[in-house]
């Protein structure tokens, strides 16, 4: 049976949460109602990336791209588009798009993107191994098993220049080499899918959209380093990804692509899933291994590195999901092809979760070396509500805050380090003029203090102290000496902490002090928050000239701080005011001001 048309429904997290499942069912029902079950297949795919406009529906072979589709629209899509061949223009991204140009070519969001890691996301049904195989899936595994020696595989990965996508950017091939060099015996291959960065969901989307690519890569890595056992360590907060991984492992085992004697090559490799339990520090290699061993996820000093002494004391390679998703492509297309993409020191592409105050939130993949300006303004469609761009943040709680003057710096590992941030796992958060920098730094410190495992003093005590200073500053009781103290503590934490969490926890402060010192100073000296975010620094007043005495503010005030007669100007009693801002929101005459 061959289908004539395909309706692809995005099954990414954002779309699924947004009535995506109901939409999928509605489309299936509509296809059935029109008696087209044999001609049209409805497929639930992985993330198509354009989360802002979800749920997304794509029709093949016409390549029509529908956005913000609701379950009620299913009938229109099937009845109009499929049956009568008429494009449903009201569901197009640009309602005035010409009828001949209805695919992604007409959408800025997809220009400048280049997909390696996400090659299958949004194209195949992640629950069907046959669709992965049809797109050259498991071909790379076959190639290494029958045409390459383990050391050739490692050499190829090394030559490609691919670096770890989990944060630090260590060359993947080197890691494999270290583990391969260890004496033969039990070794392990671990996939780190404990994506704990707030505001990052690349790994989740990859696993949900294309789980087999990661499994295939793990088997290839296992072959290269001489491991026959793999673990995927994944966040328990990602139930859908876990479910799709389980399905994928079962299917691959059934097909003989995992398990004993793969494809009759004599190489055996099996994969087990281990769940994380909500500890950010477990993204750190040694803590992650402790957690797989069923212990508290506390890091241990390195060396010995996991490649020498890892899981249960055996040599272990730990690679991030995105890193692994690159591997099959590198093997099939060759290191040379791969190393042509990107910049001198950073090869390939990078997936970013583009979020915050941006018009097009979503999941994007761009070649290394793309500038922030291209990402934020061309792909992201600029700042929401026409506001001014203030800063971008990469690398989550371990990363830095990037000011506008670096919009044109090509993004790669080395350039980001130079401007005081890190690549991190790929969260890219955009901030506008309404965001207060000390407040953001406080948010990140709050996170790292909460997530510090408490083993070493610099992180446990230093983090808490930093947070206390930031709280003081945001309350308006900070001093300039506090800033100096923060700098000292940051440096001590950076040098003396045991693991990456503590070493980088002060990055949001260090980088923001470097570029946004004025804002800290304003909080301290003028008791002013220019973003009007720090409540303690705000004061509300009513302009008598504009107030018509409608009493709306007085009625909404939760502490009765506003008094005044009907049709007479009202007054706020600042001693009572709790600065909740409800009067400001409710006033229709712009009579309430805040400063």
């Amino acid at each position, binding site marked *: 049976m061959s289908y004539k048309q395909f309706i692809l429904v995005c099954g990414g997290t954002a779309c699924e*949460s947004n009535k995506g499942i109901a939409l999928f069912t509605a489309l299936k029902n509509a296809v059935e109602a029109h008696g087209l079950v044999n001609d049209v297949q409805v497929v639930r795919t992985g993330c198509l990336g354009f989360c802002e406009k979800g749920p997304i529906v794509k029709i093949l072979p016409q390549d029509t791209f529908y956005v913000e589709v609701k379950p009620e629209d299913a009938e229109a899509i099937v009845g109009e588009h499929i049956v009568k061949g008429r494009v449903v223009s009201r569901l197009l991204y640009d309602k005035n798009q010409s009828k001949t140009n209805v695919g992604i070519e007409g959408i800025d969001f997809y220009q400048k993107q280049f997909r390696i890691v996400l090659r299958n996301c949004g194209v195949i049904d992640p629950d069907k191994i046959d669709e992965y195989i049809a797109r050259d899936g498991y071909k790379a595994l076959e190639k290494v098993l029958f045409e390459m020696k383990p050391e050739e595989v490692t050499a190829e990965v090394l030559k490609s220049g691919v670096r770890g996508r989990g944060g630090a950017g260590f060359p993947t091939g080197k890691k494999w080499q270290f583990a391969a060099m260890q004496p033969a015996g039990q070794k392990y291959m671990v996939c780190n899918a404990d994506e704990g960065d707030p505001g990052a969901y690349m790994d989740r989307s990859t696993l949900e959209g294309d789980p087999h690519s990661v499994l295939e890569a793990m088997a290839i890595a296992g072959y290269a380093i001489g491991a026959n056992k793999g673990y995927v360590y994944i966040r328990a907060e990602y139930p859908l990804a876990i479910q799709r991984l389980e399905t994928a492992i079962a299917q691959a085992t059934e097909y003989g692509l995992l398990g004993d004697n793969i494809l009759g090559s004599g190489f055996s490799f099996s994969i087990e899933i*281990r769940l994380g339990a909500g500890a950010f520090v477990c993204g750190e290699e040694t803590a992650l291994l402790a957690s797989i061993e069923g212990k508290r996820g506390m890091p241990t000093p390195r060396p010995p590195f996991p490649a020498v002494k890892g899981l249960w004391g055996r040599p272990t390679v730990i690679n991030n999901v995105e890193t692994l998703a690159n591997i099959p492509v590198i093997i099939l297309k060759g290191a040379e092809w791969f190393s042509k993409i990107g910049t001198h020191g950073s090869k390939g592409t990078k997936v970013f979760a583009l*979020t915050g105050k941006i018009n097009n939130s979503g999941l994007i993949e761009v070649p290394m070396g793309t500038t922030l300006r291209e990402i934020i303004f061309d792909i992201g469609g600029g700042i929401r509500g026409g506001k001014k761009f203030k800063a971008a943040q990469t690398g989550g709680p371990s990363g830095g805050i990037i000011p506008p003057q670096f919009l044109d710096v090509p993004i790669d590992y080395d350039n980001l380090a130079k401007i005081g941030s890190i690549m991190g796992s790929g969260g890219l958060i955009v901030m506008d003029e309404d965001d207060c920098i000390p407040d953001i730094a406080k*948010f990140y410190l709050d996170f790292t203090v909460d997530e510090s495992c408490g083993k070493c003093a610099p992180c446990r005590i230093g983090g808490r102290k930093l947070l206390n200073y930031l709280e003081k500053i945001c309350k308006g009781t900070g001093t300039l000496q506090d800033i100096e103290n923060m700098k000292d503590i940051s440096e001590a934490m950076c040098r003396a902490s045991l693991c990456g969490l503590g070493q980088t926890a002060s990055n949001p402060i260090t980088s923001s002090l470097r570029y946004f010192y004025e804002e800290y100073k304003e909080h301290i000296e003028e008791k002013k928050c220019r973003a009007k975010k720090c409540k303690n620094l705000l004061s509300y007043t009513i302009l008598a000239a504009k107030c018509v005495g409608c009493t709306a503010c007085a009625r909404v005030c939760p502490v009765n701080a506003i008094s005044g007669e009907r049709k007479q100007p009202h007054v706020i009693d600042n001693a009572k005011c709790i600065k909740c801002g409800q009067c400001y929101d409710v006033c229709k005459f712009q009579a309430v001001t805040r400063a």
Partner: protein
Amino acid sequence: MSNAATPAKGIQSLTPELKAFIAEWKTKPGNLIMVLHRVQQTFGYIPREVAFEVADLLDTPLAKIYGVITFYNFFKLKKPGRHNIQVCMGTACYLKGGEDIIQEMQEILGVGLNTVTPDGEFSIEAVRCIGCCGLAPVLVVDGEVYGKVQTKDMQGLIQSIKAKVIKE
């Protein structure tokens, strides 16, 4: 502590499925976290009595089990409300007013974070990024995700959940 033959009313104890799961995992190294996940899936939290039983069956000191439970954010020692309102505190949600949503919820329900309302119906929890940043700010109630929420809608949301309960 040995297993009581018939646990008193209101005291949780391992279900046969859980016992089978533990038996299956007992020989695998590093099984503790997987077992605790299954326990929490069943009860919604890890009841004290059950932790005792797990310690017995896995031959693991109770102190080690509590060490693990309290280390990880995901494991709960207290029973959450019948409807646990999880407000995302990822960066995107924070920037778009996640904290205000929590404030509003606390005011409406009259309880603080990680506390259950006296009738046992609701509890509020601030959770780590749930990965729907495109929908920020986001909250999850009973497995359903509510995206792009605003403080003024919260009263209505609580009412609609209450109404759903009555209908059921």
